[in-house]
Structure formats: structure tokens, C-alpha cells
């Protein structure tokens, strides 16, 4: 079975996000990147499926900040093939254009099950999975937390609210937007990634950046309105504790 996992880097939210002077984008040179956490879940699920039923896992990503390292890390974790999509993505890329570029590259390789992160922190114009499925003309299910492959079909569990899940049977090829893998995404030591960087190679495929196809553009970015901001409690841990206890007492939650 051929598993394909599109992955991407997103700004690490642990760091302070700074805006550019025009206030239309992040100040990109100050951004620290990490793999989209849901893509990491998708990769883990693909690796688990490979271990379970056999096959090969191909990871692919648009060329950008630290893309090589991200792809090599995926290979170090167990992916068989890494493909870097080359093109003009300097000014960032909208999800519609990313999905189109990926659909073109994926159509040229064998694929049965495409697993990608259910969402990303910056997918303003829509989640990759359903866009990609649309361009490839294959079925998709998003918000998936459980995947089995039985008799050439995927049996997937999609999360609804309140802890309820719906089970679907899906003909392959298909795209799944993965919310969480069955296991915590595996860790791989930096030394192992360095080894892989020396031994493995990434394939490069030229793609077109269909910028503008998303039909919308960013007018302004801003910090959220601070109207209802919390009243901050300060002091030593002991002082803070006493103030919190006062709040509980006022609420009748502590005598």
C-alpha cells in the first residue's frame, strides 16, 4: 500500500509572533518554524499503518524554511521517500495553491491513502485535506482519529462533538485529514536525523505556485481585541494562592 503524507512547517506558537510593518503578514525573518503538529500525527498514523499492513510512506512538502530538515526527520522516523516541491513560494503560499501543487505532484506517483494534518495554525483559506481531495477527484474524510485498512478499503473514525464518532468505509485512493494518530508521534534523535541527511537524498519536483486561486487576500493582521482580558493576579505563589482562595470564597466554593 502506498501512503503519501504531505507535511508543512508552521510558526511555533511558543514564540512571540511579530507582524511586518504593513501589518499584512508575520515578520517572517523573526519566525521560528516547526512541523505542523497535525501533520506529525498524520505521519505517525501512516508509519503505524505501514508497520501493520506493509507498504511505503512518501512524505512531501513545498520548498521553504527548513524543509530539508523536516523531510529528513520524517525519513529518520521511517518514511521511505522524501519529495520536495520546488517553485516560487518566497512570499508564502495559500492552501489552494499548495493543494494544487501537491495534487499535481501526487498524481504522478503511486498513491492509495493520503494522510495529512486535519488543519494548521495558518490555513486561512481552508484545510489542505479536502482541498487536495477536490483537486485529485478522490473521496476524503477529515477530523479522523482511527484508521484501519480492510480488504482494500479504509475504515475510518471521524470525530463529532461530545466524544461521539462516526465510522465510514472509504474506497481508495482517498485523502484523510488526521486529527490524532493511534500513538503519540514518535521522537527521533537529532543524531539520527544527521545520519539520514548524509545517506538519504530528497527528490525534487518543479511545481507551479497557483497564487491568487484562493480568491481572497489578507488585508490586515492584528492582535485579538483585548476587551474582556483577564484581571491579572500578581505576587508570590503564596499571595497568588490567597487571592485565588478569596475568589473561591466569594463564589461560595470554599468556606
Amino acid at each position, binding site marked *: 500500500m502506498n501512503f503519501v503524507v504531505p507535511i508543512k512547517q508552521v510558526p511555533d*506558537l*511558543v514564540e*512571540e*509572533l511579530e*507582524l511586518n510593518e504593513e501589518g499584512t503578514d508575520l515578520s517572517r525573518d523573526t519566525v521560528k518554524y516547526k512541523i505542523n503538529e497535525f501533520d506529525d500525527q498524520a505521519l505517525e498514523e501512516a508509519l503505524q499503518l505501514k508497520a501493520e499492513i506493509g507498504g511505503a510512506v512518501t512524505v512531501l512538502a513545498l520548498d521553504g524554511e527548513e524543509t530539508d530538515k523536516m523531510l529528513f526527520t520524517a525519513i529518520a522516523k521511517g518514511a521511505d521517500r522524501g519529495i520536495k516541491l520546488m517553485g516560487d513560494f518566497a512570499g508564502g503560499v495559500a492552501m489552494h495553491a499548495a493543494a494544487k501543487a501537491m495534487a499535481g505532484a501526487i498524481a504522478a506517483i503511486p498513491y492509495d491513502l493520503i494522510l495529512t494534518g486535519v488543519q494548521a*495554525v*495558518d490555513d*486561512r*483559506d*481552508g*484545510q489542505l485535506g*479536502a*482541498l487536495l*481531495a*477536490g483537486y485529485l477527484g478522490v*473521496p*476524503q*474524510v*477529515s*477530523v479522523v482519529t482511527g484508521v484501519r485498512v480492510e480488504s482494500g478499503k479504509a475504515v475510518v473514525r471521524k*470525530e*463529532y*462533538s*461530545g*466524544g*461521539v*464518532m*462516526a*465510522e*465510514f468505509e*472509504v*474506497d481508495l485512493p*482517498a485523502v484523510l485529514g488526521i486529527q*490524532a494518530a493511534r500513538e*503519540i508521534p514518535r521522537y527521533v534523535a537529532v543524531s539520527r536525523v544527521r545520519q539520514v541527511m548524509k545517506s538519504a537524498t530528497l527528490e525534487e519536483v518543479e511545481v507551479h505556485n497557483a497564487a491568487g486561486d484562493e*480568491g*481572497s487576500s*489578507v*488585508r*490586515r*493582521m*492584528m492582535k*485579538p*481585541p*483585548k476587551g*474582556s*482580558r*483577564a484581571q491579572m*493576579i500578581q505576587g508570590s*505563589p503564596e499571595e*497568588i*494562592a*490567597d487571592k*485565588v*482562595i478569596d*475568589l*473561591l470564597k466569594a*463564589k461560595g*466554593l*470554599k468556606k
Partner: protein
Amino acid sequence: MSQDVYVVAEHFKGKLVEVTFELLGKGRELADARGENLIALLFGHGVKNLGAELGAADRVIVVEHPQLESFNPEAYSAALVEVVKTKRPAVTLVANSSMGMDLAASLSVGANLPLVAYAVDVKWEDGSLLATSQLYGGKLYVESQFVGAGVVVSLLAGASPADKGRTTRGLPQVEDFATPPLGGPKVRFKQLIEPEGGDVDITTQDVLVSVGRGIQSADNLPLVQALAEAVGGALASSRPIVDSKWLPRTRQVGKSGVKVKPKLYLAVGISGAPEHIEGMKDAELIIAINSDPNAPIFDYAHYGVVGDLFDIVPVLTERVKS
């Protein structure tokens, strides 16, 4: 091209879902601002009776078919794309829910329309639509403008009060739309899986101490468990804790977990991603402890503490006990 505003009504187990009324409220605003009609779309099988509850809309368009009985990403998307391609509304509003995430992007590709997701607001400005999305885990708001007409916007839960969407203008006219080919079926609904019972029901607790990524390791959970016991509450959590299998899924608060309204919600080491906020923002008293002064949780908490939970929680537990 019509100037009407369309809203995709979401229903589950024979009932309209709350977010439908939020969409209707926002849709009503958009339609009234230009003196146009608000149309609710209803897909299902034997769901026409729900049309009577969609009185905030001027009309209800119903597509019925056995394949639409339960939500199905393929069949629902096919029906939605066909209606929108035929009627060509100015705006189609979809919930950024589990179902809506399948529908909005499929509609965008299928009908070749712009899509903006995670919207907390959408309005007309100088004759054009402007959508404001909450991105980067709630840390930034992003305003989007559109090229051309006919757009799809997916709205986050809580973007607009549901009350407005419950205000009825009388019984809406319900019209049938001929069922288009629904595809495949390559996606087949099998069954609903209900959450396992037997654990504490966190929706009935007066006090919840809820723990997030800031706890760092399962080994540290007893720290917050002790606090929960001291304040006479139960332990809840954000999604990563459950995905890491440190707590059962029954403890998860948020979009795909449960929605809670306790008297006290004490959030410990939770940054407050929109998916989490959706599940706890209506708690009577929210106190948040987080080391990041810019964590979005402080925009929703009534009281906030910026600091190291490992310093504060043990002291708080001791002082509550004594």
C-alpha cells in the same frame, strides 16, 4: 448570480445543532444589510420538518435522499456543490465544525469559489465582504478581502449569538431541490460510536481543574489531581493530554470533547486554542494559570496568573486544604 445569503443547517440525530442558529444569526445580518434574502440549506432524509425551526431564514431549500440520512462527506458535498452552482448565492456560510470542515473546502473546489476559514466575523464593507479569521492558535486575527463575488466562509463556533438565529420571522417557505447525483458512493456511513461511560461526567461538575500541555509529563499530573481534590472538583483537560493518553477521552473539554459550564474552571497550563475555548468559555468563573503572558486563554479568563504552574499549584493546593 443572486445576492442572497445561504447558510448550511447542521443537524444531528434529528435535531438542529446550536451552531446552525449562530450561522443563521450572522446570515440574517448579512442579508438585512443589503435587503436580500436569507436561505437555509437542509440536507438529509425525512428532515423537512426541521424547516419549521429555521424561521430566521426567508426560505429553506431541502435536498432529501437516503444517502443523506446521516452526514456523509461525499454525498453532502455533492448536494451542496450542486445547489450553490445552481443558485449562485453571494455568500455561503458553513460552520467550522467537523462536518463543516469537510463541506467548506469541498464546496470551494467543487464550485470554484473563494473560501475563508476560522471566521469570527464577516460583514459588508463598501459593497465587499470582509471576513475576520482567528488564526495561529487564537494569537492573531486576520482580515480577508475577496476577489469577485460568490464566497464561502466557515465560521467558528461562538462567532455570533445563537439567539439572533432563533428569532423567527414566521414559518419559512420550504422548497425541494431535485436530488443531484451524490457520487460513488465511495464513502459509506457505517455507524455512530458513542463515548464510553463509567468515568466521571465532567459536564455535571461544579468545579473543574483542567490541565494542558504546560504540565509537560504524565508524571506531573498528580500535582493538578491534588488541586482538583482540594477544591472538591474533577480533573479535566485539553486535547493534547488525551491524545497522549494521560487521561481518558471523557475528560476532554473542547470542540471534539465536551462543552462544560461549571461554576469554576481553573485552567492550568492551557494556552487556549480556539478548539478548547469553544468548550469552556461559558463557565461562570474562569481562572487561568499560564507561563505565557500572551496566551489566548487570558482573553477568556476572568482572572489570570502569569507564572510557573509548578511553583503555584502546590502552594495553592496546600493553602486550599488548610
